[in-house]
């Protein structure tokens, strides 16, 4: 069979289950495809070919015994911020260039229990700080739809890898949009679960009250399948909720008659590309045609404060989390001195890139004596307001729909020297992390030849509504089947 790398999880699963293909065949096809496109896309920091073939053999043995679940034997790319025992985990930073974790993240253990296959670790913005993957300390990832454009970020390697079929699915992490914005830029699906749904144990910490791991996939069904495996309570992460996990595939119903959908006007911002706006309008009209009741005039009045609140909260938490990179326990260590403070300062100076330093500085400032109340405490109070915006909206609507990003993918280099312009790329995704609610981005059309993402938002722990409306839209459209010219 040809082009196995183009399969979705559910397609691959059916072929594996029916013994039409083996996991080794599928994995070899994916690895061969990686070799043919990776020098153009640069999605992967580390390739794990031997490990992939070894685990594919194990998966085939399990399948022969009749032990097969949806992710069994299916090749995946893991964002390089998620710890994999014995496999280098760099966070795209010089600081962790040679770090080999002594343990697996909880999500990895869950995938292993299903006999998953890992083909590599995906490129990203350093420590997940960025919106373009240009902050990787190693190299820039290119967008498969236009190699002169960024893939978005910070999970840019994961999203580009899924778009160009370097894997069947990928895991990313999302602190302010880092799954959804690159999924939008690369024309694939990406879901950020509710805060507390997926264990963060073994996810290298950026901003602990905002971080969440989630799937990046070729369609909505695959999002549900990955969620089924990775969600659930974990004693190792006290912020995971002790709630039962539904079978998310039961939400995949094409009928959205009577579903109440709100369109918050604040997300159609000034500076938004007109072509992105038109694509969204046509897509939302499609939802109406499918029987949804759409209210085009919803207001979430505190939205405009989201960006400022986020860029206080996230850097503050980051400045505390990244204090651990002191050159003592692991990672890069400056050794040409006997002075403790000098060693620590030089370790951070040489080990961190510009954006990480900027955020450490910003967070340290916001937390410092005399500024704490004016910045950090203020931002946490604004967080209360932004959260209440969503709580009120969800009394009237099942889901909200917005653009995922105000623009399509921008050109490499365009925003690297202007941090504030870069931050604006996450305008529509940041408030979701601030409120902790779940959201998904799915392909909604094209503007100027590049994919446009549509974001759905729902209330806490209601990922099912996201999957339901996304699935209905996907069944009625063909955007998710479009392939980039490079593939």
């Amino acid at each position, binding site marked *: 069979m040809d082009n196995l790398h183009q399969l979705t999880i559910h397609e691959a699963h059916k072929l594996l289950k029916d013994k039409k293909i083996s996991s080794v065949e599928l994995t070899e096809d994916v690895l061969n495809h990686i070799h043919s496109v990776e020098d153009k896309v640069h999605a992967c920091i580390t390739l794990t070919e031997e490990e992939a073939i070894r685990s594919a053999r194990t998966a085939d043995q399990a399948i022969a015994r009749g032990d097969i679940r949806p992710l069994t034997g299916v090749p995946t790319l893991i964002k390089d911020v998620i710890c994999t025992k014995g496999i280098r985990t760099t966070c795209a930073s010089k600081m962790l260039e040679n*770090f*080999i974790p*002594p*343990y697996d993240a909880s999500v990895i253990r869950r995938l292993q229990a299903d006999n998953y296959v890992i083909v590599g670790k995906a490129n990203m913005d350093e420590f997940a700080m960025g919106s373009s993957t240009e902050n990787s300390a190693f190299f820039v990832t290119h967008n498969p739809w236009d190699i002169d454009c960024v893939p978005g970020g910070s999970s840019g390697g994961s999203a580009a890898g899924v778009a160009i079929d370097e894997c069947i699915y990928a895991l990313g992490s999302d602190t302010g949009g880092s799954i959804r914005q690159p999924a939008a830029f690369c024309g694939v699906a990406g879901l950020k679960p509710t*805060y*507390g749904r997926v264990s963060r144990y073994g996810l290298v910490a950026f901003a602990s*009250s905002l971080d969440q791991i989630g799937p990046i996939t070729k369609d909505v069904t695959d999002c549900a399948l990955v969620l089924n495996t990775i969600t659930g309570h974990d004693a190792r992460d*006290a*912020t995971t*909720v002790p709630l039962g996990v539904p079978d998310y595939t039961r939400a995949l119903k094409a009928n959205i008659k009577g579903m109440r959908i709100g369109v918050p006007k604040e997300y159609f911002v000034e500076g938004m590309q007109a072509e992105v706006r038109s694509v969204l309008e046509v897509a939302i009209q499609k939802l109406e045609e499918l029987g949804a009741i759409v209210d085009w005039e919803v207001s979430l009045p505190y939205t405009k*404060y989201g960006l*400022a*609140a986020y*860029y*206080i909260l996230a850097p503050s938490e980051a*400045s505390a989390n990244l*204090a651990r990179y*002191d*050159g*003592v326990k*692991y*990672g*890069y*260590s400056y*050794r040409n*001195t*006997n*002075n*403790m*403070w*000098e060693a*620590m*300062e*030089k370790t*951070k*100076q*040489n080990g961190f890139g510009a954006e990480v*330093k*900027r955020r*450490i*500085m*910003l967070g*340290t400032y916001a937390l*410092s004596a005399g500024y704490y109340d004016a*910045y950090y*405490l*203020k*931002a*946490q*109070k*604004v*967080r*209360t*307001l932004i*959260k209440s915006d969503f709580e009120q909206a969800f009394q009237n609507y099942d889901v909200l729909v917005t653009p995922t990003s105000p623009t399509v993918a921008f050109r490499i280099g365009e925003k690297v020297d202007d*941090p*504030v312009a870069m931050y604006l790329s996450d305008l529509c995704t940041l408030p979701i992390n*601030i409120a*902790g*609610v779940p959201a998904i981005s799915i392909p909604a059309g094209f503007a100027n030849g590049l994919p446009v993402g549509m974001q759905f938002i729902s209330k806490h722990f209601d990922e099912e509504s996201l999957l339901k409306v996304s699935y209905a839209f996907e069944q009625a459209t063909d955007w998710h089947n479009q392939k980039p010219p490079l593939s």
Partner: protein
Amino acid sequence: MKLSAEEVRHIALLARLGISEEEVEKLRNQLSHILENMEILSQLDTEGLSPTTQSIALENIYRLDEPSPSLPVEDVLSNAPNQEDNCFKVNAVLE
């Protein structure tokens, strides 16, 4: 409001982050520009509002204090830049 070079150096010291003179100037401009964009928050009256520290409001998660195996010492030290006698080795803290 523009940060002074002195303030930038002070923040870097608090963070124990080494920065060059060139970085002081660059960070001064960039941080000032970012902070200007945050002034929008001062328009909001937040008097009497409680801060939200995290979004799902779980509180006081307890577990039984039962011993269970930890990582082996050699695994924990496997990434150590410097080690001696099963310990992380560091520069003198008190001189």
